[in-house]
Structure formats: C-alpha cells, structure tokens
C-alpha cells in the first residue's frame, strides 16, 4: 500500500520549519553543542532546541505546565498540517488520527517527580507532576490543541519507533473511517539520559558525531520533534512524495546481531536499489550494521546520515530522517553536495539502540 505524505514539520536543534532547517543542512551547518551539567558533577554535550524554534507554539492552557516534548510536538504538528493545507474543523478532526512516537517520554518531569519521592518521601509527591510523567501526556495535549476526538495512539520504542508509528498509521489509513493521520515523534534531552547512554558506552564526550567511522566513537543526544501528515488521495494539497513501502522490521537481541536485522529490512526495501539511503548511523554499533547492508543491497546509492548534524533524538529521529529523504527528493539536493543530484527513490533505514529495526522507501 502506497501512502502520500501531505505535510511535514519539525523542530530541531537547528531551528524549526522544514525549509529553513533543510537549507541550513544544505549549507553544511551542524547543531551547536550545549553542556548539560549533572548534579553528580559530570557535564554532557547535547544538541538542544533553541527557544526561538518553539516561539510559534500557541498560547494554549494545555501547554502551561507541559513538558518540552509537548511544545516541540505541537509546533511540528501544526507545521505539518499547515503545509498540507489541512484545517481541522470538528468534522475533519473526527476523521483524523494521531500516532505519537516517543522513547524516553517526559524524562525531566519523571525524574523530578521521583527525585522528590527519593529525597523527601512519598508525602512530597506532586499530583501536578505525576500526570505529565505518563507516556501519552504529550499526545493528549496535542490532540486537545488540534481538536482530535477520534483515534489517538502513543507508541513507545527506540530510534525505530518513528518508522513503526508510520507503519501503524499506514495500517490505520486502510480504514475508510480516516482521511488523515498525523504522525509525530518527539524527545527531550536531559542529563539523566546522557548518563545512561554513557554507561551503555554509546555516548561521545564531545562533537562532532562521525557516522561510519571505525571504531565508532559515540553519539550526541539531541531533542526536538518531527511530524508527517499522511492523507487519503485528493484530500490535501498535491504532494509529490509517496511512501512506497514500510518495513516494520524485526528485532535484535545483542548488538552484534543488529547487522542481520538491518540487512533483513534492506532486503525487503531494496528489490530495486534506491538512489539514496538516509541512514540512522549515529557513531555507535548501528553504523557498522548499516554499512554492511548498504554495501550489499544498494552499493551505488548516495548515503546521508542526518544524525551527524542533528544528533540522536531517538523518538523524533525516524521522522527527521524521513523528512530529510523527502526533502532530498523534492529539492534534488543533498547536504554535502554543491551540485544538484538526480534522486527518484530513497530508503530510510531506522535501527534503534535497543533492539528495534525498521525502514521505509520513499519515491517521487
């Protein structure tokens, strides 16, 4: 089943707005690292979203105390709808589903809520914070702001969760009860995550991120959101980009098994070799797994790794990769290349850090 991408939006460490950020990527820009200090005395470099990137967030009561994830998601989601020319009145909203992808969730509020329990006892637990620790709080806020009253799903997983969310959206769109499905992936950065990834030996101590370098030297945590609106044919402004196929992939148990899992996804998506591979390489074991699959299934494809300039945003990353693939096909340009390129198809490869692998194939 082929589905149309009707609209796109994102919030990234290089700002918000698909055109604006894409142009910055084409110009070879990378996000600047900011230091996040852990109270335990260690500093971590992260790519954070600048405050200006969420300045367009609406002044809605739901956003007063919400997490950064919710603000990122709202700005990205609204951009996707606007770029598709879709206005959600109650009738259209009823026929619009929301699929929200996230990995770590509202980690800042969760940490704060639990910290008070650990430090001061259960009497200190805040009833204001607890609801924001729930994985689907950002999706709830987004649905309330957009007026979506039908299907709302939050999917949790690793860096592949955005692709799994697109697969779920494709399955949902098979129903004639839906006209649109908004897929949003989001994540926020926090020192606790950095600490965890460091102990997992996946974190780099300072930029740059160097995908496909051996040995892998680690990733930089980042934050933001990506949003993609899928629409039934004829219900949104004409879009040249189709998702030709989504491979919901498989799982791997140990890092050394990732190559076989990624290869299975490439095998599914590369019956005809694509012109472009948008890789999830981030400076970790993922790179080698993808490199092996690329060499076998699409040795002549151009390869772009967006996690070098934007970092590893986990829940948002698959959506960012898909937007990059779509923009490359639309503009016939690639970051790192000064000349126009000829691109008809792109494979987005999404290998997560914790066992999930998926991917999709775009065509123009």
């Amino acid at each position, binding site marked *: 089943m082929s589905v149309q991408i009707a609209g796109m939006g994102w919030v990234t460490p290089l700002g918000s707005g698909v055109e604006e950020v894409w142009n910055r990527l084409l110009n070879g820009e990378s996000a600047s690292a900011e230091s996040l200090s852990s109270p335990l005395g260690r500093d971590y470099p992260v790519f954070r979203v600048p405050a200006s990137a969420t300045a367009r967030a609406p002044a809605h009561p739901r956003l007063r105390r919400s997490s950064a994830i919710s603000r990122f998601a709202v700005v990205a989601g609204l951009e996707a709808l606007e770029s598709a020319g879709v206005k959600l009145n109650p009738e259209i909203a009823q026929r619009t589903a929301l699929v929200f992808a996230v990995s770590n969730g509202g980690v800042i509020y969760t940490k704060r809520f*639990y910290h008070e329990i650990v*430090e001061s006892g259960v009497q200190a637990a805040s009833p204001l914070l*607890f609801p924001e620790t729930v994985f689907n709080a950002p999706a709830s806020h987004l649905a309330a702001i957009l007026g979506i009253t*039908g299907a*709302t799903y939050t999917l*949790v997983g*690793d860096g592949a969760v955005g692709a*799994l969310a697109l697969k779920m959206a494709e*399955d949902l769109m098979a129903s004639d009860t839906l006209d649109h499905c908004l897929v949003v992936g989001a994540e926020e950065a926090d020192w606790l995550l950095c600490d965890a990834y460091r102990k997992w030996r996946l974190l780099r101590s300072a930029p740059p991120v160097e995908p496909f370098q051996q040995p892998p030297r680690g990733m930089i945590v980042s934050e933001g959101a990506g949003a993609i609106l899928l629409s039934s044919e004829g219900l949104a402004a004409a879009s040249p980009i189709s998702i030709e196929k989504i491979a919901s992939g498989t799982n791997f148990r140990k890092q050394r098994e990732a190559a076989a899992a990624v290869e299975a996804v490439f095998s599914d998506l590369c019956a005809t070799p694509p012109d472009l591979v948008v890789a999830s390489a981030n400076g970790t074991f993922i790179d080698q797994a993808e490199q092996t699959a690329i060499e076998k299934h699409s040795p002549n494809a151009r390869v772009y790794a967006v996690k070098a300039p934007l970092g590893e945003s986990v829940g948002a990353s698959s959506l960012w990769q898909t937007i990059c693939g779509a923009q490359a096909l639309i503009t016939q340009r690639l970051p790192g290349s000064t000349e126009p390129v000829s691109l008809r198809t792109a494979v987005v490869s999404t290998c997560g850090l914790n*066992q999930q692998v998926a991917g999709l194939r775009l065509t123009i």
Partner: protein
Amino acid sequence: MILALKEALEQAGDSQPELTVVGTTSGGMTFGEQYYRDLKAGRRPSRQAPSLIANYTPQKPVMDAQEAFGIGAPCQVIANACASGTNAIGHAFNCVRSGRYQRVLTGGYDAISELVFVGFDSLQASTPDRCRPFDSERSGMVLGEGAAVLALENLESARKRGATILAEIIGYGISTDNFHLTQPDPSGSGARRAMEAALQSAGISPGEIDYINAHGTATLFNDAAEGKAIAELFDGVPVSSTKGMMGHSLGAAGAIEAAISILALRNQLLPPNINFRHGDAGLDLNIVANSSRAGEVRTVLSNSFGFGGTNASIILRSVAA
C-alpha cells in the same frame, strides 16, 4: 509477559505472528527506579547498569518474551495509559480484519512500581478501603499488576488449521476526550463515543450486548462518567467491573479483562462486581453485585479508559462450533 505468552501460544498452537501489538503504561519503571536510586546514592556503576537501562524501555519485556519462544515479529508497544491493553487488542483486531495480517499477538502488561503507586496516591485516586466499583461510597482504586496475551488470527485461517477458537472479536471503538489530562468528561461523552464506535464497527445494536465488562476503577470520576454513558446507551444490560477482585493493572487491565470476557462467553457466567452495596442515586445500572450470575452470554463489550482522555471499547462474541 513470558508466562502469559507461553499460555497463549500453547492454546493457539502453531501461530507464528506477523506482528505483535502490546499495551503498557510504565514499561520497566522498576528498573529505572533502581538505576536512579543507585545514581543518587553515589554507588559506582555496576556491570548491571546497562541492563537496568535496557530493561527500563517498554519494548524490552515484550521482545524478551518473544525471544523466549523464537518469535521475531516486529513489536508495536502502545502506551495509551490505562486504555493501552484494549487499544492494543483493538488495533490488532483491525489489522487482521483489514486482511493486512493473518496472525497478530496482542495483549498488555504492567508491573507495580513505586513511582506509579505514589503517583496515583498523590492524585487521591487510590483507596485505603476496599475497591468498590460503581458503589456510591467508592473511594478509589487498588493497583494490580500482571499480563495477558491473546493470539488473534483470521477466522478462516484458524478454522482451516483446526485451531480451537476461544472467541471472535467483532468490534472496536476508540475516542479521545479532550476534557482534562487525568479526568474524563463528566458527561460520559468520551466513553459513549468509544462504545458507539465499537457497536458500529461490529454492526450490532446496543440491545445485542449481553454483558459489559466495565472499566470501573472505583474512582469517583470514572465510574460516574462511565456509568452515565452505559445507562444512556444500554437498557439494563448486566454490568460488572472485575477490578474489585483483580485490582487495576493499568496497561494490562484491558487485556486481562478481555480474557475475563472470553471466559464469561465460554462459561455462560457473568463475573461479579464485588464489594458493592449501593449504586449512585439516579444511575440505573444492572450491576452483577457481589456474586457471579449465570446467564445467556453471546456478546460482550469490554471498556478501558485512561489518562489523556483515551477511551477504548471492544466487542467479543461466542463462536459457533
């Protein structure tokens, strides 16, 4: 998850799924708690630290369970708060019904964690008394934990291979009520829309439902809103919440209650709503009070509602031999 999956696979026989859809609310929160406590205590990172991080992620228990039985299907883990289990089953049902998948494993899991326990307590949603769903003097929920797994399969495929078919899922409805992050719309409109959508999906009328397994958390707000929606939509259908007996297992609840609904169909027995004394004034519900009740049960509706205004209903039916 492993025990529930083992039992489901043993019953289903040869049933390698193409997809797994599972609900949870807090995933491996207990591992996250341990990690944070170690960190705050200044304990040196142990060799266990990476596994605590890996096990914290909600997909890990599902993939571990799959691995134990040689299943490599992709996992979609739905975290729609307390509606997660029913949402997972409902989405899995739609995947099979659409013809896009033949076999899908589905269900839900959750384990009690300190963070979640204290969280519900901070909201005054937990009771120091007994859990009394739909009772006028109800004062909140008792948390539970567990897992349930259902092996869904296209009816024709299941019949062809001679599988024992436990029940048929015939309808699923989902709605989002944007009233409040933690409270349902008091009018019951969100719950009502989910039940109406499930009936429409099943192509049946409210009069064809023989029993409702309610969400019935025994919180003031849920039971009032759900009770109102049931009373408006149905005419005297027997209703019970089994959370008085099982507790509220959050992401597992919808899956566990789907299993209970199937048992009601297979045993022609309505499970009781225990600890019930008096219903809310003005709310006309046919509560299966305190003792199970024999009855002719062909079609059951099961509800789950959660934080974020997520509402889900599924309809299950007996399968003729």
